[in-house]
């Protein structure tokens, strides 16, 4: 099914790249407005405390300070992406170290910072709880006494203390499944707090303009959803708020958050001037919205012949102080606790738990890296206990085309087994290992493209140049280039003749924005639809100009061709049309994507070498095999694969925000370690023959595929190398050394 495309499938370099590397691209922190002030926040040093009093009088007197506000100065309303549980500024209580307690707007950032030192807050410390299991007991302090009153709280409410979401997935009869099993295995896995480590920290600018409209610049990838959240907390009509586009310096799931925007408005209001707030990385690491730590217990019933018969999963996610930073309240990826395997009896419980830790948010394939590490490690523990080869054990159980997955979903054209086979074959699964303490590990996961809503317009001008207009921010993935290719292909134009204009939130009704591997599918379909609409209009006009019927006119390589052989250049049609109309011709499409019928599997094999004397792990090679659709742009596609693998490697081996009593200890990117180029292994990418997808030209999403299976593959390779499992991430030298010594007794 390889169709001949001219622009689709080409390695087109990203359009905005030159602007970025030359410093021309405008990010939020580049926005400067006349009279603009700088906002800074004072954060709580305690994980749980009552605010007895705040005295801001000394700060207010500092020259250059225009406003100092506390929770008492602003309306008592909470904000959230769905669950509205987070105060804009703490009122009576603080629930984590780093919570915002007061804010200052001043003429420059140093003055603002100095003013913070002049704010006196008296706290009365309260008993705190950091461990989610402890938080779930009745003995733990209840962190949100008014939970039931929060808008967005899922119903029915959990009776368990500090649990704000309890999700269940059920298939078959779990008890019966265990009763019918010959063997039962149970293991618990622990994953860490992880920061998205984007280059650009959270920033925003808020200006209340002379018409009373609130102008917002923020590095938020979901501006329409941000507008809804802001309208709710500010109690303003949405139309009164405009979110203006900016480049976003990396997202990885973290930039869907409102962060300081709600507060910035109150500062701007109090000061009567525009205000800018930019977090530094210390604040990012102390109070961003990182990936949830997970505590995952898997219990599996096995048939003696190696078939998985029952799976019970309990995933406990430490959400920290607030649930506001998640668009769905829970983490849907917990539904992957069965993995891509045929399992007749499944029961999954997933808990979101409040503790006095940093509130967590979304990060690249929310919950899937956590549960996939657990599921894939558990698979190897079972395989080894049963004397099965981990690859063959997976092949025996992996979903086949036509199967429903462990939570009952059915996908078209399941190629999980193919992905596993290709990964194993490419990695030389059965080849003898070069030396002792080297190991191979295999892992698999899947990610369907996310659905959403998108609006696009494609215009063509008198020169035959097209422009794609969308309210879709650039998060650095190269998506706009891919969308230009989609438009160019449809109009048979060279890609250089298709430009992009990023619009603000006034321009269209709604756009979901990037997230959940959605852009190529949802926004791709709207761009495609708009281009098709324009092509149809041009075809009708071409037929008119050529004096034929529209259905006899076809567009090929920039030229309209009538049945009788007469032809007219597309740009001439456009010129004539624009001359007649007096404005550019425009095609439009608003697309609401139904849930995708396809998912996309990614299987990986890691090869590691362990130094048994220091415990250091070196990943020598990683094979990543992808069940793809049409690859629209091999450069951006590969960029997503490579970036994901590297992020997965950091998750597996080194990245961890360590906390003590709720206080994040690793407050710099020296202490919070992300991989460097020297840590990156040889990467071999295998793309399966494209076989359909819901996005334009039978393509699929790729953004959240490669990051998910990495930790499982590396953990299993380390297990293979040292003969002892490590059930806690990251797999540091210290833990490996301990595992080796534990095994030696």
């Amino acid at each position, binding site marked *: 099914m390889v169709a001949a495309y001219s622009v689709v499938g080409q390695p087109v370099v990203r359009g905005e790249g030159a602007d970025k590397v030359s410093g021309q691209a405008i990010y939020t922190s580049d926005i400067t407005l006349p009279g603009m002030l700088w906002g800074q926040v004072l954060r709580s040093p305690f994980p749980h405390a009552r605010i007895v009093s705040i005295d801001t009088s000394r700060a207010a007197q500092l020259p250059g300070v225009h406003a100092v506000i506390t929770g008492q100065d602003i309306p008592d309303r909470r904000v959230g992406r769905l669950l509205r549980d987070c105060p804009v500024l703490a009122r009576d209580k603080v629930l984590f170290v780093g919570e915002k307690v007061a804010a200052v707007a001043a003429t420059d950032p140093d003055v603002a910072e100095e003013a913070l030192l002049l704010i006196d807050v008296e706290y009365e410390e309260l008993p705190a709880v950091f461990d989610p299991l402890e938080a779930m007991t009745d003995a733990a302090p209840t962190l949100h006494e008014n939970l039931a009153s929060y808008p967005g709280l899922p119903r029915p409410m959990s009776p368990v203390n500090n649990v704000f979401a309890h999700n269940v997935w059920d298939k078959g009869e779990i008890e019966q499944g265990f009763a019918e099993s010959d063997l039962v295995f149970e293991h618990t896995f622990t994953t860490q707090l992880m920061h998205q480590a984007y280059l650009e920290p959270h920033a925003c600018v808020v200006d209340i303009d002379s018409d009373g409209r609130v102008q917002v610049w923020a590095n938020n990838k979901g501006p329409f959803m941000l507008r809804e959240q802001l309208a709710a907390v500010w109690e303003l009509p949405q139309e009164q708020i405009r979110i203006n586009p900016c480049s976003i310096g990396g997202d990885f799931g973290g930039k869907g958050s409102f962060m300081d925007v709600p507060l910035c408005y109150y500062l701007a209001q109090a000061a009567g001037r525009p205000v800018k707030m930019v977090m530094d990385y210390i604040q990012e690491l102390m109070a961003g919205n990182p990936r949830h730590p997970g505590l995952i217990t898997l219990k599996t019933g096995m048939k003696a012949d190696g078939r998985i018969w029952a799976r019970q999963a309990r995933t406990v996610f430490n959400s920290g102080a607030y649930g506001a930073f998640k668009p769905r309240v829970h983490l849907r990826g917990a539904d992957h606790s069965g993995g891509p395997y045929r399992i007749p009896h499944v029961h999954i419980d997933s808990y979101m738990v409040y503790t006095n830790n940093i509130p967590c948010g979304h990060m690249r394939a929310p919950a899937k890296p956590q549960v996939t590490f657990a599921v894939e490690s558990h698979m190897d523990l079972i395989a080894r206990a049963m004397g099965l080869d981990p690859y063959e054990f997976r092949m025996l159980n992996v979903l086949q085309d036509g199967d429903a997955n462990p939570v009952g979903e059915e996908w078209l054209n399941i190629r999980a087994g193919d992905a596993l086979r290709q990964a194993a074959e490419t990695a030389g699964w059965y080849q003898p290992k070069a030396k002792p303490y080297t190991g191979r590990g295999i892992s698999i996961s899947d990610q369907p493209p996310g659905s959403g809503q998108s609006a696009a317009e494609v215009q063509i001008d008198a020169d035959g140049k097209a422009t794609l207009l969308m309210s879709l921010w650039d998060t650095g993935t190269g998506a706009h280039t891919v969308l230009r290719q989609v438009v160019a292909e449809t109009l048979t134009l060279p890609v250089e003749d298709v430009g992009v204009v990023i619009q603000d939130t006034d321009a269209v009704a709604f756009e979901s924005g990037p997230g959940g591997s959605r852009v190529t599918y949802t926004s791709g379909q709207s761009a495609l639809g708009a281009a098709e609409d324009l092509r149809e209009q041009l075809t009708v006009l071409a037929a008119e100009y050529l004096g034929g019927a529209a259905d006899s006119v076809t567009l090929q390589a920039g030229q309209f061709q009538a049945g009788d052989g007469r032809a007219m250049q597309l740009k001439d049609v456009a010129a004539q049309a624009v001359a007649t109309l007096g404005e550019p011709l425009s095609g439009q499409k608003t697309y609401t994507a139904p849930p995708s019928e396809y998912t996309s599997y990614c299987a990986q094999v890691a090869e590691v070498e362990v130094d048994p*004397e220091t415990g250091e792990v070196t990943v020598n090679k990683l094979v990543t095999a992808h069940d793809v659709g049409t690859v629209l742009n091999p450069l951006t596609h590969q960029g997503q694969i490579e970036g994901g693998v590297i992020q997965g490697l950091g998750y597996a081996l080194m990245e961890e925000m360590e906390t003590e009593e709720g206080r994040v200890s690793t*407050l710099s990117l020296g202490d919070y370690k992300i991989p460097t180029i020297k840590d990156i292994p040889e990467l071999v990418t295998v793309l399966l023959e494209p076989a359909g997808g819901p996005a334009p030209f039978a393509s699929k999403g790729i953004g959240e595929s490669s990051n998910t299976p990495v930790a499982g593959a590396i953990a299993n390779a380390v297990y293979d190398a040292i003969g002892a499992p490590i059930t806690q991430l990251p797999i540091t030298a210290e833990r490996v050394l301990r595992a080796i010594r534990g095994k030696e007794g």
Partner: protein
Amino acid sequence: MHPFQYTEPQTLAEAVALLTAAPPVDARIIAGGSDLLDEVKEGIIAPGRVVSLAGVPDLDGIAETDGGLSIGAMTTIADLAAHPVIRAGYTALAEAAGGLATPQIRNVGTLGGNLNQRPRCWYYRHPLTPCLKKGGDRCYALAGNTKYLCVTGGDRCYIVHPSDTAVALSVMEATIEVAGADGSRTLPIGDFFVGPGVDVTRETALEPGEVVTRINLPRPAALGAGGQPPGSVYLKAREREAGDFALVSVAARLGIADGVIQQAAVALGGVAPVPYRARAVEEYLQGRAISAVDAAHAGTLALPDARPMTDNGYKVVMANNLVKQAVARLTAG
């Protein structure tokens, strides 16, 4: 960031004067700035004046002298790592320098700054934990996470000295030349670093206003007939391949003649508040025929006085194994 006055003196005397001028303003030396500016931005220090050494003559460069090598304090780590004489004759130092931090930091960071950098203990670096080293009233590590802290030599404070070059210099009988208001003095490297038992707020013997000017490496003593220049090696265990401090590191230098070890120097990093001389290993090796060396046994002598804290027992295992590897490497063939 706290504002400060930035000065660029053109002579050493002027630099010392700016560091000590009344009224005291907490004046600090800046070399490459890769640690100093972090400390200011993180709010650990708030100097009123920063004194750059960039314009002071004769602090840069590596010179061969009658006695050996003389390295200016402003020499960058990258230059140190690339220098042919250091690579050939002082290999452990070249390896320590070439493998530390990142290429960017090695290009701006200086040897003087590397030796004088402040500890990485994350309580020291954290804005919310005013520990003893910052003039506070307690050591937060005692009730906290100690996985990166010391296994020996702690005394109220339990840091490890972060410098890799310091460990390598410790096996090379290096001396540190220091200039101050009262003239200059020269300290053996073993006296340059001081533990928390001496003063919990600093890591070196430098007095306020003193500047490290040069680091001198004596030429290794001539060995008898059949003698080779001593070989040295630097090994470092870490959590990522670049931009990461040592979990444990070892520098070893052995002078061997006629198959017998004439001189042995072994030092460990990542285990103590100062570079740690593994005297027991040295004693075991000194005078021993290389054919009779049991590297694994040498390893077990690495830290006879180790008293690991709750989370860092693994460092002792690493130290034993790294010493074993270093000794095996230097006595092979």
